[in-house]
């Protein structure tokens, strides 16, 4: 009987502790609600939306009369199958963003805004030179061209961050 009582007392005493442990465990699980692969997949979709924002920005700038000619034609053509290329690449850049989203979560919008520099650097230092347009595309365009490309692409990172944040919620 003593043993039974002791056992019951222990159970009674452990009750609230267990509850607290469970709650703490739930909070821990909530704070890591998404796995890396889930964040990657969500960021891929967010990257496509970011690329859509860039396409829209190219038209807005065009309507405002801001067009600089160069090796990349602006506004981005909406014709198929050409339109799918920037959208898909937006998704691929979104994957990379998904890798660093969790460490950057506290400054997500700042990091997101600056993240446009990643595809921009790849464009200026790799894709344009590889296409024969030279570094920053300056072989086939004036010095304003790189700034214009940056301006068109400016919404990319911040839109990815906003969409990813909206999809993921409070905890990455």
């Amino acid at each position: 009987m003593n043993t039974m009582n002791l056992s019951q007392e222990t159970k009674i005493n452990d009750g609230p502790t267990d509850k607290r442990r469970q709650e703490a465990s739930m909070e821990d699980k909530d704070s890591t609600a998404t796995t890396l692969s889930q964040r990657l997949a969500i960021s891929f979709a967010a990257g496509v939306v970011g690329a859509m924002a860039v396409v829209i920005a190219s038209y807005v700038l065009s309507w405002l009369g801001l067009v600089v000619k160069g090796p990349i034609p602006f506004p981005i053509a909406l014709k198929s199958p050409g339109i799918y290329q920037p959208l898909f690449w937006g998704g691929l850049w979104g994957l990379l963003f998904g890798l660093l989203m969790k460490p950057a979560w506290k400054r997500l919008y700042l990091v997101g805004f600056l993240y446009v520099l990643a595809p921009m650097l790849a464009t200026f230092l790799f894709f344009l030179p590889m296409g024969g347009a030279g570094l920053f595309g300056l072989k086939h365009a004036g010095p304003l061209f790189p700034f214009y490309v940056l301006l068109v692409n400016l919404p990319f990172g911040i839109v990815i961050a906003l969409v990813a944040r909206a999809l993921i919620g409070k905890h990455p």
Partner: protein
Amino acid sequence: MNAMQTTLTLMQRAAICFAAGVAGALAVVLFSHLLFASGISPALGVKAPVSLKSPDIYKPLFWGGLWGILFGLFIKTAWDRLYLIGFLYVLAPLLALFLFFLPKSGAGFFGLQAGGPMFTLYLVLVNLPFGIVTALVARAIIGKNP
């Protein structure tokens, strides 16, 4: 514990299935090359597999993602029979292709005006991996509970 079982929102599932749908479409593209290399596509009167060149390749991948979003909207409901429903889900894009996109492009219903019943058979065959791969990838990303 119940809260833990429903950690993903509808939007999260849709976004994840967008990526899964892209993977499903990639499987279709690869399968078209496999069918071509094995001589099955030429036997059905198809002259070339899906182009891997840019920008042609991006179109099927993107549309795979869009069909993936639709799959993501009901993946939770279909969770208990995910692979069966995933496998059958290929019927959705196929029906759209047969009854809308092909007639719109002048190939007629089921693409019968483009290559006869063999072409229709090819389209069914080549698209077969789409739904099941989408389901498998979605399941791998989502985990045990949708």
